[in-house]
């Protein structure tokens, strides 16, 4: 084989190796990026902290977990909470433990509900599906508005918080409180987020507001 042929083969081989390494690293990054593991861990940890807080509340109480969790299922027992996706092997479930005082109990199973609630009834903590938000109600994850009537929704660590307001009998949203878009559009027009789209959680919320246009009392 002459030198030129050998070097062409070597160059081709080296290019193939580089492409393979790039493909492997991108695949690994994509697999971790698309994984729901962080969301499951966050849900389990947050529910555990909510249970600890409920134990400290004297009397009865009910609290709603603010994130939409229709992808996941939950099992609550006296000492642990498990979060998993339907069909997953038990060894990949996320399980966190907590400690209840004596005479306390905890139970409940929720499978792929939009919202879950924790209710404390007479020393018993129950995990259950929340009552569905009526179509003409403001979604609970928007919380309460500030003094100017603007709602803030933080969809998590990887998403920019979005602001919402009810103006002239319809809803608007904004990433920066300066440029406001109608809920009929999903793209920012203006400002530093120009031409960008919101995160998936916020898109769901915008679609809900577009579809039901829940009114605000005393607007």
């Amino acid at each position, binding site marked *: 084989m002459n030198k030129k042929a050998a070097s062409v083969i070597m160059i081709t081989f080296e290019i193939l*190796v580089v492409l393979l*390494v790039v493909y492997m690293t991108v695949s690994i990054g994509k697999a971790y990026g698309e994984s729901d*593991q962080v969301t499951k861990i966050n849900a389990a940890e947050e529910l555990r902290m909510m249970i600890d807080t409920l134990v400290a509340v004297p009397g009865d109480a009910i609290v709603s977990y603010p994130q939409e969790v229709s992808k996941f299922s939950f099992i609550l027992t006296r000492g642990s909470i498990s979060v998993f996706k339907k069909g997953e092997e038990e060894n990949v479930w996320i399980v966190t433990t907590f400690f209840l005082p*004596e005479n306390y109990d905890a139970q409940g199973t929720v499978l792929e509900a939009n919202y879950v609630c924790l209710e404390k009834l007479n020393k018993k903590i129950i995990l259950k599906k929340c009552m569905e938000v009526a179509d003409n109600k403001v979604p609970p994850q928007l919380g309460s508005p500030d003094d100017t009537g603007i709602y803030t929704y933080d969809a998590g660590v990887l998403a920019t918080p979005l602001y919402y307001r009810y103006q002239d009998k319809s809803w608007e949203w904004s990433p920066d409180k300066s440029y406001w878009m109608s809920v009929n559009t999903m793209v920012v027009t203006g400002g530093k987020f120009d031409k960008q789209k919101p995160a998936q959680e916020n898109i769901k919320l915008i679609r809900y507001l577009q579809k039901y246009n829940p009114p605000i009392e005393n607007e």
Partner: protein
Amino acid sequence: MNKKAQFAAARKTIYWMIAGLVITLVVIGFAMVIASYRNNLAKVPPEIRAELISLRFTSNPDCFAYNISDKVILGTIDLVKFNEETLLKCYSTASAGGIKTFNFRLKLESSGEEITTDKYANVDKFTIFKEVLVKRQTGLFKDRLIIYVQEKIGT
């Protein structure tokens, strides 16, 4: 193939054997870094967890909170209940193996009274302070509850 060409071919082969090993290690290392980053994203500071667990000490009448029949006075410690037997009923770690989770030492600053959970081993990581009212026979007195927190010991 002459000697020079043979040497070049052998050199390339050795190079690619070493490069293949290094690339594999780099890819595995990259996966581990991303996994570690992802775990850190979901980490809850232990101070927050301990603070939420310790809320029950001064708010739940099954722990130390003073209550008059059904009415609970929040932020109080009933000295009659302030003992290790009540603490064990209020917060028991037996189901989780004891030392593999939070353990506490509770101390009332003014009176010096101190109680600990059953697997407390004097390995304090941080401290929580709570201003409380202590119910004694003669009435309610202001005090400070110092909660020494021991985190998980071992893997």
